[in-house]
């Protein structure tokens, strides 16, 4: 069936070479070297990796009524695209929007990331795993300053999102990528479950989900990583002044509550 979906999409955009890189419940993620509207030789401005683009495709769901299906696909696709643009406006590092075909559930965006020394993709997960393999008691490279800075940066990104009333909805170490080998600047990706929310509960759950993901995916150093992420999260709220400080304390006290409840989504990550 998955092949059928890929074939259908390929038929819709026959001139675009597609490479499937992941499949979730709702969308398929493809990589392509073909920009949707710029001919070869014309590079888009201000993207990290010209010549590499991501296509996110929400295929039709045949189980639901076609009318409902169209409505859901179009609204989800356009709200995700809008969010990507909003993040660009806000200066939050995230994949830049290139194009959208809402009725057909397609978003083109910038590809972020690079290849790690072990040939894997530079998701935070893969990078930390690599460092954790190389760590030993005398040289815990997974706890080096560059990891600390990176975690701070992640915390700051999440903080900026929250300060602007946006929750990511699915924070895991796979949904955070390093965008640059030299600076290790992190970026959040996959905003498919993101939403606007002013509720401390939603922000707290956002944090909680990431903490769980860290603990299950990186059990040895999770505590340190999490401490550094929270530091960055705290700093960016602090810099926002009184409003930020208030928001921070609301979120954190709710976060502690959510942690106590600790009953849900225990397998995330």
């Amino acid at each position, binding site marked *: *069936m998955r092949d059928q979906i890929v074939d259908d999409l390929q038929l819709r955009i026959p001139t675009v070479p597609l490479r499937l890189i992941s499949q*979730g*419940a709702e969308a398929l993620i493809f990589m392509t070297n073909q920009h949707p509207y710029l001919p070869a030789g014309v590079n888009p401005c201000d993207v990290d990796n010209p010549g590499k683009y991501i296509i996110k495709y929400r295929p039709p*769901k045949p189980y639901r009524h076609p009318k*409902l299906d169209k409505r859901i696909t179009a609204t989800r696709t356009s709200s995700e695209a809008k969010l990507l643009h909003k993040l660009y406006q806000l200066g939050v590092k995230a994949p830049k929007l290139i194009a959208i075909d809402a009725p057909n559930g397609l978003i083109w965006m910038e590809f972020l990331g690079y290849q790690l020394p072990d040939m894997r993709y530079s998701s935070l997960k893969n990078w930390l795993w690599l460092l954790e393999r190389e760590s030993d008691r005398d040289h815990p490279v997974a706890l080096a300053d560059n990891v600390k800075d990176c975690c701070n940066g992640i915390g700051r990104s999440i903080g900026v999102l929250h300060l602007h009333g946006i929750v990511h909805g699915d924070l895991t170490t796979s949904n955070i990528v390093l965008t640059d080998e030299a600076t290790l600047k992190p970026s959040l990706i996959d905003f498919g479950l993101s939403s606007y929310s002013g509720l401390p509960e939603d922000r707290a759950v956002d944090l909680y989900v990431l903490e769980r993901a860290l603990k299950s995916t990186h059990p040895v150093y999770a505590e340190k990583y999490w401490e550094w992420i929270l530091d960055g999260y705290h700093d960016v709220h602090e810099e926002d002044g009184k409003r930020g400080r208030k928001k921070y304390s609301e979120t954190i006290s709710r976060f502690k509550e959510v942690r106590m409840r600790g009953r849900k989504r225990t397998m995330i990550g």
Partner: protein
Amino acid sequence: MVDMDAFAKPGKPYYLALGMEGSANKLGVGVIKHHLGPLDENNRAEILANVRSTYNAPPGQGFLPRDTARHHRNWVVRLVEKALKDSGVKVSDLDCLCFTQGPGMGAPLQSVVVAARTLSQLWELPLVGVNHCIGHIEMGREITGARNPVVLYVSGGNTQVIAYSRQRYRIFGETLDIAIGNCLDRFARTLHIPNDPSPGYNIEQLARKGKHLVELPYTVKGMDLSMSGILEYVDGLAHDLFSGKKSKYLYDEEDGERITVEDLCFSLQENLFSMLVEITERAMAHVDSNQVLIVGGVGCNERLQEMMGIMAGDRNGSIYATDERFCIDNGIMIAHAGLLAYRVGYGNELEDTVCRQKFRTDEVYVKWRDD
């Protein structure tokens, strides 16, 4: 491997358990038989009796705890008698007596546990308190042969997406407000359609005749969902329809025909079930499973089964569902899950048999599975 026979009676090649269920408006009693050794396709549980009595409130009303408890008290002893007779089992041959400890409505739960306590002392049998949701899940697995499915549990009081991991049935998604069955029941009340055989069944029949899809709110939040806003909205549409309003939204935007009650039932089902299938699929992707098991009263709905089947098919997987004997609350599932627990050493002292209205699925340590 879990030793499923550490507590077997010497020389007896099988187990027998009687189960009693009364957490909502159905009272059920069942008798089940397990043979020694782990259950598998060559060693299936045997259903020896499965009897039920349903309390139906008058049209336009929901069942109240007090009335339901009275119904259960009136019938519980007679139903136990009937189940024993059907099964041909002698009381002295039973190994344990299982009862629903929760979750559910307090008064009905308590009305049944009193009978269970008395009988366990009379017959000198150990009591096993069973989580109602676990009962559904284990019975569903046994009947369908699904090994490790993502479970959608949909009933009058519950809406949960559950998957097994490390000795617990964990809740991945659930309703943030009302349960799906409750939502359908309450809409049936708005429409004043009969509660017999069940409000949900009657909505399903009406929905088959609907042809216009009316736009309703669609409220999925990750793996959770919310239904109270949808109910409020569709209730409002129904009231406007009955009061003869001529507003534009009461006419189909394509053919201009007036919306009917059937259309509302159809639209409500399509909308709610799409949400359920969506969160189930998300959980399946999350735990990397391609089996889905639907349990609970709403699981009988054929449209829901059909939609879930299409989704599972698209994931190269399969759907497992049971018929009304098992998806609607029953005593046999309590007997079955209770017996599994009994076989690995679970049992409740009398003072430990208090019912718990909010007994969560993930509180139970599932000792009888080792995967």
